[in-house]
């Protein structure tokens, strides 16, 4: 059963975050870690948002909007995946809380939205070009206030398209939720294993995308420190027992 008020909420928040990413403010509310966590919080499953956001933050860490080049749209990937994961976890019969299997499934289903988002961003550019031409024409006729106000009209297509996409992801999450609980146990276990597997690969992509000199050395060094810390803790725990 789809909760349409939740779907609408996910859509509106997804649309607003899409605007924040490029059109307004850019205070990083639209970064995957923040966007997905806030989506999870709004929909009632914070953990799903947080862990989906953690993985996608790493995956898109090196992407940057330089000049006219358009990077993948990390925000739509984060809002879409987190809305799907939270809705899936909250759907009737799905258990009420997110699990690594659900997070992995959501990312497998909607992680590619980042690439689609870039195509949508490119597709909307001619509309903005028309707005700029209209503004110039209005300025020629002395309608200055109306000319500069054209700037704000560039936002609504982004809002509408991305709100619809995120709402759609949420609805799919609700529809898929009951089926997840009926999946064979081995497949659920495989999906649960897929979350850390994708996380490790995403973090490796992040290390590479950090643009740091000797990034491999720094990443390997801190990874070794964390591994040693875990080993030391395990030894101490065994000694205590």
């Amino acid at each position, binding site marked *: 059963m789809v909760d349409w008020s939740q779907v609408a909420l996910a859509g509106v928040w997804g649309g607003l975050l899409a605007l924040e990413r490029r059109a307004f403010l850019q205070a990083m509310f639209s970064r995957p870690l923040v966007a997905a966590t806030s989506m999870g919080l709004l929909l009632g499953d914070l953990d799903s948002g*947080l862990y989906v956001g953690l993985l996608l933050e790493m995956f898109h860490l090196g992407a940057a909007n330089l000049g006219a080049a358009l990077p993948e749209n990390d925000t739509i990937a984060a809002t879409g995946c987190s809305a799907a994961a939270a809705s899936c976890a909250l759907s009737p019969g799905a258990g009420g809380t997110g699990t690594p299997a659900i997070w992995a499934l959501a990312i497998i289903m909607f992680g590619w939205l980042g690439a689609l988002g870039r195509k949508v961003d490119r597709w909307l550019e001619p509309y903005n070009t028309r707005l700029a031409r209209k503004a110039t024409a209005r300025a020629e006729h002395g309608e200055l206030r109306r000319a500069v106000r054209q700037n704000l009209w560039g936002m609504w297509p982004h809002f509408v398209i991305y709100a619809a996409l995120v709402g759609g992801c949420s609805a799919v999450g609700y529809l898929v939720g009951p089926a997840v609980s009926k999946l064979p146990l081995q497949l659920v276990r495989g999906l649960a294993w897929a979350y850390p597997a994708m996380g490790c690969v995403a973090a490796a992509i992040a290390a590479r995308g950090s643009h740091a000199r000797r990034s491999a050395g720094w*990443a390997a060094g801190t990874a070794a420190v964390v591994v040693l810390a875990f080993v030391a803790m395990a030894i101490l725990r065994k000694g205590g027992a």
Partner: protein
Amino acid sequence: MSGSPATAALASPAPQVSPWTLVRVFGRSLFLQASWNPQGMQNLGLAYALFPALKDLYPDPERQMAAVRRHLAFFNTQPYMAAAILGGVIFHEGRIARGEEGSEQVVAFKSALMGPLAALGDGFFWLSLRPALGAFCAALVPLLGAWAAVLFLVLYNVVHLTLRARLFRMGLRLGDRLVEQVAHANLPGWGARLRTVGAACAGAAVAYLAISLGSNQGGRVGEALAVGYLALGAAGYWLTSKRFGNYALLYLAAALAVAAGAFL
């Protein structure tokens, strides 16, 4: 046009931009990219942000129209660094309105600064500060939970908003001389240090995810999974350096794990 700039300046008292107008310009500059387009890029956003100041500076409609039109020309820079250019444009437009310089000065100012400031801002904000804080806060998720996202917002915006407001004030006060001040900030040096933080935190995240989530399984399988995840992370780094597609890598890792879970 209703006469030369010097004639206009003699005919009316020296125009001023009020503090409230400056606040409005700064607020409107947050919409700089609302209608970003490949032809003029941020041109419409710039004209939109500057409009209240141009209205204050040019009560004469003809001169106001000319001022708006010169800011509808091509403009593109890093959106945060644009605050410096906005401040500088108001500085120059004030001088033009008072008849102290010609309108070509403000056009030259924008053309000269937008490229270098874009390079500085892209390098510092997009390629250093954001990835470094993103990786740092993502690595802190196991310790802080959702507060890691809040920490990211606070740390990022303390730097972003402070710098944005300071750059705007610098442009207003110094005009062209803001370049020296921006150079003193040594943003490339800070950027290089931040990029190292990003790489180090990403490495820590690989190890945490591999061991913590791998060992959730418990027993031999858990140990094998943790080692497998670490190997996957190392292989992922190597494959990315060989230009293997990121999406292909992500979905390949998922497929391997699902297959392992289903058949082992």
